[in-house]
């Protein structure tokens, strides 16, 4: 039987220094499989088989297609195909003004739309050199953390679904998570009027101020969510089957994760102490002392632990901020009254924020016309999916499903 991985025990792991960065020695410089392996050159032990996983497959998180080359049931090459959800968002944004483009980025990462909005809005604000008022900043921070909890709820649910199936214990965890996610969506719905595509932010501030009694509702919901978090942990953390499926599976080299551009929990589970909320604070994150959970094992279980800890930390931040939202306006600019209300100066900016999946960036070029010349959205999910050719090699089909789930990719964001 697979017993607990030793590196999950609370002992300080050996560290290795790479370019001024301390990384856990046990998982750094792992041998890297060749993603462009010629299948003809491979000599299988059992019979080789090519298996098409997706785009219609229960656990490819949308419409990812993985072409797996199996040696028996062990994968020796994996080729991901993305683009089934490609909607040309970047082209659309290049034909929309700053006012019009915010609702579009909601649809990129549909599990955490608010972070997508913030990344775009902050890029426009950096271009215009506009600072939102403190009330808007604190409100944005609260929204981001609420969105992070909701996003991790959905991730945990689907992760267990991948392991336990739609007709089993996985779906129990899944539905418990949705039960609490609904409560958070109720909060966001009361604030913005929508449950999914909020359009809650605008250049220079927020579009919606808090409704009366919202803060008390947030605090009550946080109590409930924290209470129920223990319930998911009872079903997962020490569960023998859950541990057998995740511990030691999909070990991600921190160097590979960095070079591939992965972020968020995928990076922090591999021992890289990096979080933009603390390292390059935006919104009101400078006012709170964000504690960053870091694990050093780099496997699926470590990613799970990091995300659970992030949920607790997000609850703490929300509680801290919601009781002291400063008074004042929520917008720095006049509320827009027509489509060209925001005049863009020429310039070129890049702004990155910490979305639940990693660094979500917006690279924006403007030449002074009402619409930008180029909007490039840096999706953390795309970089997570690009890790699959490395992580899937040596894993069974069952493991690949778990590895894919643990990376938390949102295909809407991958394909844009």
């Amino acid at each position: 039987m697979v017993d607990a991985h030793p590196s999950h025990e609370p002992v300080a792991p050996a560290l290795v220094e790479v370019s001024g960065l301390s990384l856990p020695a046990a998982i750094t410089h792992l041998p890297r499989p060749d993603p462009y392996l010629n299948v003809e050159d491979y000599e299988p032990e059992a019979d080789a088989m090519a298996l098409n996983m997706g785009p219609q497959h229960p656990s490819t998180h949308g419409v990812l297609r993985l072409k797996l080359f199996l040696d028996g049931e062990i994968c020796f090459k994996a080729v991901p195909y993305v683009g089934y959800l490609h909607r040309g968002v970047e082209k659309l944004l290049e034909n929309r003004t700053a006012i019009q483009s915010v609702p579009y980025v909601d649809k990129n990462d549909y599990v955490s739309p608010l972070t997508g909005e913030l990344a775009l809005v902050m890029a426009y604000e950096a271009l215009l050199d506009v600072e939102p008022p403190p009330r808007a900043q604190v409100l944005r921070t609260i929204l981001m953390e609420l969105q992070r909890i909701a996003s991790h709820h959905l991730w945990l649910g689907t992760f267990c679904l991948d392991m336990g199936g739609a007709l089993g214990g996985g779906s129990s965890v899944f539905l418990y998570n949705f039960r609490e996610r609904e409560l958070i969506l109720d909060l966001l719905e009361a604030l913005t009027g929508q449950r999914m595509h909020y359009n809650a932010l605008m250049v220079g501030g927020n579009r919606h101020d808090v409704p009366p009694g919202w803060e008390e509702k947030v605090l009550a919901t946080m109590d409930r969510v924290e209470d129920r978090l223990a319930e998911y942990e009872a079903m997962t953390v020490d569960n023998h089957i859950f541990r057998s499926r995740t511990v030691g599976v999909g070990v991600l080299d921190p160097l590979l994760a960095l070079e591939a551009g992965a972020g968020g929990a995928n990076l922090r589970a591999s021992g890289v102490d990096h979080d933009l909320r603390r390292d390059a604070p935006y919104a009101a994150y400078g006012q709170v002392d964000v504690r960053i959970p870091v694990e050093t094992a780099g496997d699926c279980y470590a990613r799970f632990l990091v995300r659970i800890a992030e949920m607790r930390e997000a609850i703490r931040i929300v509680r801290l901020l919601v009781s002291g939202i400063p008074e004042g306006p929520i917008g720095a600019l006049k509320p827009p009254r027509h489509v060209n209300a925001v005049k863009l100066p020429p310039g070129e900016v890049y702004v990155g924020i910490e979305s639940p999946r990693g660094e979500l960036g917006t690279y924006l070029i403007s030449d002074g016309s009402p619409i930008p010349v180029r909007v490039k959205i840096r999706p953390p999910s795309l970089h997570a999916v690009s890790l699959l050719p490395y992580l899937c090699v040596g894993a069974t089909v069952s493991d690949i499903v778990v590895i894919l789930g643990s990376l938390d990719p949102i295909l809407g964001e991958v394909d844009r």
Partner: protein
Amino acid sequence: MMRAWIDTLFAFSTTLRNVGRRRVTEPLPWKRLRAHPERYRAGFALTDDEHGEVACIACKACENVCPSGIIRVEGERRESPVTGKKRAYPVSFVLDMNACIFCELCVQVCPSDAIRMRTAWTIPGTSREDQVLTLERLRANAREGHLSWATPGRLRAMQDPERKNGEGGEP
């Protein structure tokens, strides 16, 4: 090994405890357990002004701002039968809900407090034409009620940078 199996048993107590909990799914369409908040945005309505005429002045601000380009307004200037003043009226106002993304930007820019969103969905239809809202349907929606809290004026007052009161969002 033994401890791991015993820890696994906690999962059973969790699911067993949940058997007694209140169910959270809504038995739609028969019963709705929770009401939508007053800011909920689902449908559209064109409200009347204080004289009982359509408040829309056919300025095309919503048509221009709509990111999906689903609004078409055609207007003409004529004399009001009530006040006798001359102003623009919409001759046709078409809003295609098939491609609407419910971003509320049309409400955001409306200068005359005309267009508002509703908390109630339009009735499901059997063809795409059923989802195309015309001037008549939009005004009928307004008479039917279920209007969202957000009017163009309230939204912009809430976002105003010179706003004194920190407590926004009072309905």
